[in-house]
């Protein structure tokens, strides 16, 4: 009984914090999504008008399309590359922990600092175009072309997230029984076959987990776009959350911004369910 009471106490404190800072604001935002709330004037309930407007809004469709494109670029890369990296740093080599630290280092850099540094490197007269010019390649308009801006953002996101997701896979790899690899060696399996038939199936729950959290973070990304391009050029890097920010804090349409947030919530929920259907299968 004594232990149970303590357990409840420790569960209640985070619950209160989550309620105050997440659940209640989320409920309030859901209610506001049915209003024309603009902070300064009296609130009027307008039914589902905001949702109708969202679905017919070209800006929203463009932002959603940009976000999905960003997700497609980022999430597979944040699964495949960290798995490779985790397999590499899972080897028993002298000084391997230094490599792990180096790969993890970008995670420690603030997102705003990252954005500013990469903006400099991607500039028309930046270091990337300088290096390309040395080998006779024309400069690329990394952040000033509607075609290259999202891939450029994806490069930055993958660079920063690589070490973070590598740690998850490293933890999963260390739970894979060594005997399976030894048996595969006896059967004459090569490096690729061992990982395709042993590693990947055994770390599938972690792949699902990483797919879900990297999907959520791709759909929520906005600091990078705000700092590097402000959503441009021609809204080509405006994500849904950046659109929410602009609607709420630049155009003071809090009700409308709330409605966009909930449409995004539904989109993420659907994608997570699809992810679960395809990836969250127990190893048998």
């Amino acid at each position, binding site marked *: 009984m004594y232990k149970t009471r303590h357990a409840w106490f420790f569960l209640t404190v985070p*619950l209160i914090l989550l309620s105050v800072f997440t659940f*209640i604001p989320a*409920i*309030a935002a859901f209610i506001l999504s049915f209003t024309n709330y603009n902070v300064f004037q009296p609130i009027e309930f307008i039914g589902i008008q905001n949702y109708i407007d969202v679905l017919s809004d070209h800006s929203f469709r463009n932002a959603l399309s940009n976000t999905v494109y960003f997700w497609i670029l980022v999430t597979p890369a944040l699964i495949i590359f960290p798995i490779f990296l985790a397999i590499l740093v899972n080897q028993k080599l002298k000084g391997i922990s230094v490599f792990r630290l180096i790969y993890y280092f970008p995670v420690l850099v603030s997102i705003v600092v990252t954005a500013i540094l990469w*903006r400099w490197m991607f500039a*028309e007269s930046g270091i990337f175009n300088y290096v390309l010019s040395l080998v006779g390649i024309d400069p690329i308009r990394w*952040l*000033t072309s509607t075609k290259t801006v999202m891939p450029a953002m994806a490069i930055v996101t993958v660079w920063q997230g690589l070490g973070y997701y590598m740690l998850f896979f490293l933890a999963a790899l260390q739970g894979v029984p060594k005997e399976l690899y030894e048996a595969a060696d006896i059967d004459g399996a090569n490096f690729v076959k061992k990982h395709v038939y042993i590693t990947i199936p055994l770390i599938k729950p972690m792949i699902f987990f990483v797919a879900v959290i990297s999907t959520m973070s791709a759909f929520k990304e906005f600091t990078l776009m705000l700092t590097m391009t402000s959503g441009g050029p*021609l809204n080509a890097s405006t994500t849904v959350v950046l659109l929410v920010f602009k609607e709420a804090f630049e155009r003071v349409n809090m009700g409308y911004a709330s409605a966009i947030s909930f449409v995004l919530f539904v989109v993420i929920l659907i994608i997570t369910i699809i992810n679960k259907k395809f990836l969250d299968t127990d190893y048998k």
Partner: protein
Amino acid sequence: MKKTILLLLMALFAMFVVACGSDDVETGTEDNDSVDTEQDTDQDETTELSGDIEFMTIDLMPTFEEYLNGVIADFNEVHPNVNVTIRDVPLGQVEQVVLTSAAGDQLPDVMNLNTDFLKRAGALGAFVNMDEKASHVKDHYFEGLWNAGEVNGSVYALPWYTTTSSMLYNPELLEAAGFDGPPSTYEEGWEMSKAIYEETGAYGNLIDSNIHLHFPRNGIDLLNAEGTAATFNVPEAVELWEEYKELYDEGLFPADVMLNQQPISELYAQEKVAWWITGAQLFGQINDLAPEVYNKSLAAEPIVGTAGVTVADTMNIAVSSKSDNVDAAVEFAIFLTNDQNQLAFAHEATILPSTIEAANDEFFSVDVEEAEVSQAGRYYAAQSLENAVNMSPAVENTTEIYEVIRQAFQRVILEDVEPSDALADAEEQVNALLQ
């Protein structure tokens, strides 16, 4: 246990609803009117002002803490029962701070705001109408600057410090291209830009994200006088954008500056641009980034367009319409922006006053040959005050209007859309916004 958790959640939600659902939100502007009326009555009964006032400044602390505390101390000599406290917020967070404060019914009484956000929130009834509350001091300010706070026919702020442009230029880059002085017109500037680009690889004239300002600078009105329709889709605008497209294709200005991805200050500090037309208060950025470039730079008159006018960028002082002490807050706003205090502020910072008498003070007459470059820059900026106009239309959705024009121009530059088509499309979108 489920019941306990549910009850706990319900209790927390109820607390949230009670905290947020203040009667001010529900009663809105009607309450504001009643507050004003009551305070007017109070003011009639006694001339002594009292109460607490929160004054929101933008990025002025701690650099100007002494100056601001001095202003408050002087104000308290006249109004000892008014307690003024300062709340300084970073430039990039002004809108968020104001909106979240307003949502919590904690809007500062007196606020330093930029013009675009002032118009947005002013149109929603957030601020006191200064045409009514401060009409007796209207003549103290430059007319063009007083009108900076106008939206839908009313002025919602007093103009505080202002900046007009001057030019900072790099004489070595000009000399390398065979010039002994900076340009005085845009036409001359583009001619020089070609030579400088060929000789040194540096830029001259640049086009930044404020492309909408190029219309009024060249005598093209953005909107009609009533603010009900776009008026920029004219042959002169088409010709201007066609010329800019040719200049871009020649490589004479970079897209990342146009898209606001590359600060001009950084390019100037790297000697990749020969001149920078900006407020003299920003010259110091070059000193921070590259002192050796700053030390060899000189100041000059700003380039003007065919209309011969320069842009006035004014900081505004607004008073919350929900303030408990509206009269004291308005009195403090007037005191803060009076001749004496603005002149004293100009001694502390490289800014220009918005009041006529302060701007005519001999302090702004310096020997430009001898003066330090930012002081010389301010001299040139002060000279342009007479030709300075507020180029922001007196409508609430200026931000969206600028964005439409900006994107139309970007389509011309980046996607080879015909200027006439882009302008026609932008005109249609702006007219839709004004409905």
